[in-house]
């Protein structure tokens, strides 16, 4: 099975990279972009039956720094 982990900065945490991307979009002439926040997508290839609790544990212990980041897990069941 596969799982995707989305790691995003908590609301209110300054995101200098998001700001730079925002400026670059404006520089390219895209108007109407109100805000940009950059995050990470981590794809995990897991043994079948890996529990949600185990994936959450991975997120808390390494994949996200919960001082500044939130995470969201999306399980992708592989087609049989």
């Amino acid at each position, binding site marked *: 099975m596969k799982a995707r982990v989305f790691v995003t900065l908590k609301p209110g945490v300054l995101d*200098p*990279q998001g700001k730079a991307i925002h400026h670059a979009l404006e520089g390219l002439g895209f108007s109407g972009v109100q805000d940009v926040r950059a995050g990470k997508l981590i794809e995990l290839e897991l043994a079948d039956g890996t529990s949600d609790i185990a994936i959450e544990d991975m997120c808390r*212990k390494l994949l996200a720094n919960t001082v500044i980041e939130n995470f969201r897990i999306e399980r992708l069941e592989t087609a049989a």
Partner: protein
Amino acid sequence: MRSAVIVFPGSNCDRDLAVAIEQVTGRAPAMVWHRESELPDGTDFIALPGGFSYGDYLRSGAMAARSPIMRAVSDAASRGVPVLGICNGFQVLTETGLLPGALMRNAGLNFVCRPVGLKVENSQSLFTSQYDAGENIIIPVAHHDGNFQADASTLDRLEGEGRVAFRYTEQVNGSSRNIAGILNDAGNVLGMMPHPERALEPAHGNTDGRRLFEGLLETVAA
């Protein structure tokens, strides 16, 4: 004083730090590879050097914080052994949870590499006893991720408990309240972005960093 410098893959200030420690204490530190699970017997000072451990993959300091030696460092810290993390070492200490907050990308996005002004906010700690309270010193910084962030209640607690050791006297990287270095609640763990080992001898152009190591030596040797 029996010092240990922890070396991670990608550390690049480990040798400068070792030279600084040997010059001031008269004894070369043990260089301890990150895969070790124990520190040399009798280690009474641990230093985490600057650099780019694991290429800053995932987050600066994130992978190094989970390496085997860090369990021994955490145990030693809880027993009161002084631990100093400089630059990437500071990032490793926040990732390990030995210090609060996080070090994020510099607000201006640029790598900042220059001498900066610091104010010594706490001159009572075992690292800063050779400085005067409120003294202004100059120490070089060289980092991309030095923007210290923590929630307001954590910042208030750090300020209230005298745990802000150093504060920038100028805008450097966007850090909350211009914080450059903080102590843990017991006062034996210091993390700082500036590099005191780069301001040690007249040839460096400035010796303001030397007193940090001298103060430590005096406290540990006492």
